[in-house]
């Protein structure tokens, strides 16, 4: 009869054996590829000594094939919780050293249960994906044909796809793609709020290159159909492009500091030590009043936010629109801004997507949205109108997002506010709580050539020199209607502000809005935003 001390010794011994996951050779291979092991990633993510693993003892289901005889610790995934910068977070990390992290029933069951717990307990979830696709043995063995239990997390094979939509908007969900991820395995992590991918290491696509080749007879590389760069620049599926596991995890830790733990909380306030009353002389020189001159909106942002620190997201996708997180007097805010340095700051199909989803995310998690506007609106483009993406439908997304949101919203008209760009960036009638304008603001609801043609048709036609008359009248219309004073006259803006005071004005307005009460919205199952 063994006594307690012997049993504890046995427990420690067993745990020590399971701890590394794969054997030393597998671990060396992982390191050889420039990747950390699952355990090393977990250790980097969490504050030291705070991680509590769940399910280190789990075994894969019996498949009826030869792999049943192999040691497969944890069924290839580490799941648990711990603290990240002092706040609890759940995480899962596929273990590539155990059978290439291939997906299986128990592995998915563990992940699904973690998702369910994160959702019920109001705690964010971080997924570290590194999985060589589905484990064929498991899929075709006994385990692949289990009698299904509806959406069940434990023991259910599909739960890890069922829970992301349920937890969406309840708790933040971040996916770190640190390895391959195909087909079914990809559906789950991509439904997260944010995706961070490693260049040259992370691949995400519906079909893997061998399958594509078998069906279409075209040779493609992993990079071409699912590389991190593709997802950062073209598909927009990736939010942050990084070059190492460490960089991905550091970025994830920082991203979490801008967010609350769940939808009922406000984001934490952080002491940044930056004077809330800081006026910036340089803001007088940055923005040319000549509307055809470009400048980089990033520079304006860096002068306004705390310590010039801006956490940009989707920097490579639709760079004509800037989104990201920053702090104002320590408070977390979401920034949305046109960038006249790229594509003249036009809005288009891709920027609409990018902008709308970010606003909806901020709305889910009580993060005020600050919008800086300088856009000529949509560039008329046959391509975009006729594209399968549908310009009109996509342009509606940010409008929908702004109107639907109840989070505090402040808009600042920096310079051009032309045409439909106005609606897409937010006006007071769409629920923006405060709208300010710089003296350089230039508001054009309609092009002044068309306005002049419509309003002064007779004068132009009967003039000696119609072209010149037209130009004069266009200028007249511009001078009367484009100025921010006219806009303020019709209550289109709360105040026209000295650019140097932008930061103090924003901080003061945020302070007032911090007590904003939740307005009642009609009850419905959910909205039907155009997708």
């Amino acid at each position: 009869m063994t006594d307690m001390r012997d049993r504890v010794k046995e427990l420690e011994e067993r745990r020590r054996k399971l701890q590394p996951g794969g054997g030393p050779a597998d671990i060396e291979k992982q390191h050889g590829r420039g990747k950390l092991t699952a355990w090393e990633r977990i250790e980097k993510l969490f504050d030291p000594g705070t991680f509590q693993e769940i399910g280190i003892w789990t075994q894969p289901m019996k498949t009826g094939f030869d792999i049943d005889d192999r040691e497969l610790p944890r069924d290839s995934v580490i799941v648990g919780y711990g603290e990240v910068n002092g706040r609890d977070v759940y995480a899962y990390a596929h273990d590539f050293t155990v059978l290439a992290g291939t997906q299986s029933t128990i592995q998915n069951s563990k992940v699904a249960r973690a998702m369910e717990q994160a959702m019920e307990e109001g705690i964010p979830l971080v997924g570290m994906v590194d999985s060589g696709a589905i484990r064929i043995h498991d899929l075709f063995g006994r385990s692949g044909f289990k009698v299904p239990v509806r959406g069940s997390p434990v023991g259910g094979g599909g739960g890890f796809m069922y829970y992301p939509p349920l937890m969406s908007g309840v708790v933040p969900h971040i996916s770190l793609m640190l390895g391959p991820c195909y087909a079914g395995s990809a559906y789950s992590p991509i439904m997260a709020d944010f995706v961070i991918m490693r260049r040259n290491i992370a691949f995400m696509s519906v079909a893997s290159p061998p399958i594509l080749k078998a069906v279409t007879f075209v040779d493609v590389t992993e990079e071409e159909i699912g590389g991190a760069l593709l997802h950062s620049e073209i598909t927009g599926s990736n939010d942050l492009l990084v070059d190492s596991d460490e960089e991905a995890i550091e970025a994830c830790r920082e991203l979490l500091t801008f967010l609350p733990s769940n939808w009922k909380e406000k984001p934490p306030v952080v002491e940044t030590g930056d004077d809330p009353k800081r006026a910036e002389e340089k803001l007088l020189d940055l923005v040319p009043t000549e509307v055809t001159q470009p400048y980089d909106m990033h520079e304006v942002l860096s002068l306004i936010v705390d310590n010039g620190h801006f956490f940009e997201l989707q920097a490579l996708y639709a760079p004509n629109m800037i989104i990201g997180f920053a702090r104002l007097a320590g408070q977390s805010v979401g920034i949305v801004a046109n960038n006249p340095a790229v594509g003249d700051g036009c809005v288009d199909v891709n920027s609409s997507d990018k902008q709308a989803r970010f606003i909806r995310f901020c709305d889910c998690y009580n993060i005020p949205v600050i919008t800086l506007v300088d856009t000529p609106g949509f560039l008329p483009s046959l391509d975009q109108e006729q594209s399968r993406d549908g310009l009109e439908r996509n342009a509606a997304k940010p409008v929908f997002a702004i109107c639907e949101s109840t989070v505090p919203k402040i808009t600042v008209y920096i310079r051009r506010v032309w045409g439909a760009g106005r609606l897409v960036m937010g006006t007071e009638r769409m629920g923006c709580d405060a709208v300010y304008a710089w003296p350089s603001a230039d508001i054009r609801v309609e092009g002044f050539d068309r306005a002049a043609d419509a309003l002064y048709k007779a004068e132009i036609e009967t003039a000696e020199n119609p072209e010149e008359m037209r130009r004069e009248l266009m200028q007249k219309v511009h001078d009367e209607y484009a100025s921010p004073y006219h806009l303020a006259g019709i209550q289109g803006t709360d105040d026209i502000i000295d650019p140097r005071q932008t930061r103090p004005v924003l901080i003061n307005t945020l302070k007032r809005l911090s007590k904003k009460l939740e307005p009642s919205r009609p009850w419905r199952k959910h909205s039907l935003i155009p997708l």
Partner: protein
Amino acid sequence: MPGTTLGGDLDVAWPTVQRGLMGAEGAVSFIYKREFQAIEDEAAKQEKQAQRVAEMQQKFESLEREWAQEFIDPRDTRPFLIKAINTLKKRHEGRPERKHENIRL
């Protein structure tokens, strides 16, 4: 279309159902790859492959019967669906409270 695994209410199949990522041949070629590679003689290899495929197909059939909640005659599809919809009409399902979701746009 995984049915109940994504929250659906019923998994019902026609007798022609064939679930899975790839057919029996594909699965066998992957799972028993090493076994086949070890056989030198071509004829013996083919025989073994055929045996494994037959085993796999039989396994599929018996497991398929365990999985589906109901197999129906295709001609009964319409009455079955109508009955199921009527039965499930009063089904109530909650969702976690939140302002709204954050679906990929």
